[in-house]
């Protein structure tokens, strides 16, 4: 299959080498090597079933033991795809936001402090500070600052998703993985989440999976196109969208398939 992978020549946050993901007898991701530049937003696009979500979830070791992940994932010059690696620490460094908002059935405050407390942060001043900064970063602070003790389930879908972003940010991760974070949201909420992402770019590396090409072109700096479990094209977003190197990418972007 014809592929085109452009070199970035930038400082990398994380990269994969020959990554493959296998579910039982089914291989979902083949031989994928990608580089994700630091403090940039990289979008992964592709049709449903192209393996993009599966790929994303292997980056912070979210697959359970029934799934085989082969190849290397280099983060801070360590291959984190090894059994001896502390996967809990990996996930603290590489946070994740999911397709559907999944706040805990707890208060807004506890949604953020729960993981912090379990990680040994108990000083209430530090906790309060983290709540405020994370919620501000996720652009939710102004909407909820007066009732932090309200159940998170009472928030709107968009607010819930931003709470989930804030929750991930509270751990001060390095990289934020987002798996179609706006697909369950209405346009206004989507816009808010995207605005949040653009703001976060200066402090975080963001990798976002989306099937929405407009979204990819709006928010991302780099774009990777997945098809049938393989990386077909990777380049700066404007190049991918305006001058795709591979015919398949062009077809996909112009809506000829998928």
């Amino acid at each position: 299959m014809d592929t085109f992978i452009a070199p970035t020549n930038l400082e990398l946050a994380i990269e994969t080498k020959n990554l493959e993901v296998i579910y039982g007898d089914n291989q979902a991701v083949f031989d994928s090597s990608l580089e994700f530049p630091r403090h940039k937003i990289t979008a992964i696009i592709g049709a449903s079933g192209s393996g993009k979500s599966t790929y994303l979830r292997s980056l912070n070791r979210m697959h359970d033991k029934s799934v085989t992940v082969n190849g290397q994932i280099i983060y801070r010059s360590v291959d984190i795809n090894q059994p001896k690696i502390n996967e809990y620490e990996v996930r603290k460094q590489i946070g994740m936001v999911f397709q559907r908002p999944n706040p805990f059935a707890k208060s807004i405050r506890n949604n953020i402090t729960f993981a912090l407390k379990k990680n040994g942060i108990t000083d209430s001043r530090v906790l309060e500070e983290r709540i405020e900064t994370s919620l501000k970063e996720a652009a939710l602070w102004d909407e909820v600052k007066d009732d932090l003790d309200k159940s998170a389930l009472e928030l709107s879908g968009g607010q819930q998703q931003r709470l989930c972003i804030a929750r991930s940010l509270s751990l001060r991760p390095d990289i934020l993985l987002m798996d179609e974070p706006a697909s369950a949201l209405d346009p206004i909420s989507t816009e808010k989440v995207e605005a949040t992402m653009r703001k976060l770019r200066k402090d975080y590396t963001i990798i976002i999976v989306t099937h929405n090409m407009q979204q990819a072109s709006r928010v991302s700096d780099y774009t990777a196109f997945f098809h049938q479990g393989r990386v077909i094209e990777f380049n700066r977003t404007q190049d991918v969208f305006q001058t795709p190197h591979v015919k398949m990418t062009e077809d996909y972007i112009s809506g000829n398939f998928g």
Partner: protein
Amino acid sequence: MDEIKDRLLKPSKATHEDQRGKFISYLSIGLIAVLVISILVFITIHGLAMFTQNGMKISDFLFKTDWNPGKKLIGALPMIVTSFGVTLLSALIATPFAIAVALFMTEFAPKRGAKFLQVIIELLVGIPSVIYGLIGLAIVVPAVRTIYGGTGFGILAGAIVLFVMVLPTITSLTVDSLKAVPRHYRQASLALGATRWQTIYKVILRAATPGILTAVVFGMARAFGEALAVQMVIGNAAMLPQNLTSPSATLTSQLTMGIGNTIMGTLPNNALWSLALLLLIMSLVFNLVVKLIARKGRIK
């Protein structure tokens, strides 16, 4: 930055937590396994003693009809027949009621009606079997006597009492299986112009059949093992039942009646343990049947 790299390579608190958590949960399930195995082994050993130590024949036990272990007569057939009789009959009566109540709770009045019936069903579960037995003795037995003659004791009285006792089991499991039928089945059927009953009968009940069968089998397992309530209304005569209103005895009633009057290690005592083993085997069989139903349901 090396500090973070370091952390990636070392086990942390979370790692230990997970190990500890796994240990606790494995321990618990292991404990249950040990309990089950010990009770199985225990009853098997005692239940086989009659055949191994007292030299009785299994065929006599299963197919002969004279039960008087004190005189070396160990035919358990009357109890086996009666146990199956009350179990089948009670399931037969209970199933339509259970399905009706379950349908009412899921299809007709899923909000208030369901809540109300839920409370009722939980209360039925809460009534102790002794009380069922006493009420059976005070009401069901005389009623059967006036309507059908005889003494009133027998399979019919037992089945009526058991019907009420297994109703909650069958109903709640049926509710679960009806709830598991995907919503769009209903919508699709109704959209095609089917009436509610056609939808229920042709679509929902059909889709839920394996689940309902499972519910019935679990109800039967409960009925098979029930002792005190049945003992009060069955008549406890170790004879093959002539009809539904002739006194007879179930495996459980014979077991509870006799156990205190026999001496450990003697034939009469061992014979009762063999009845217990039979009960155990039956509950295994019921579970096996459930497994088979589940497998068949999945293939369809």
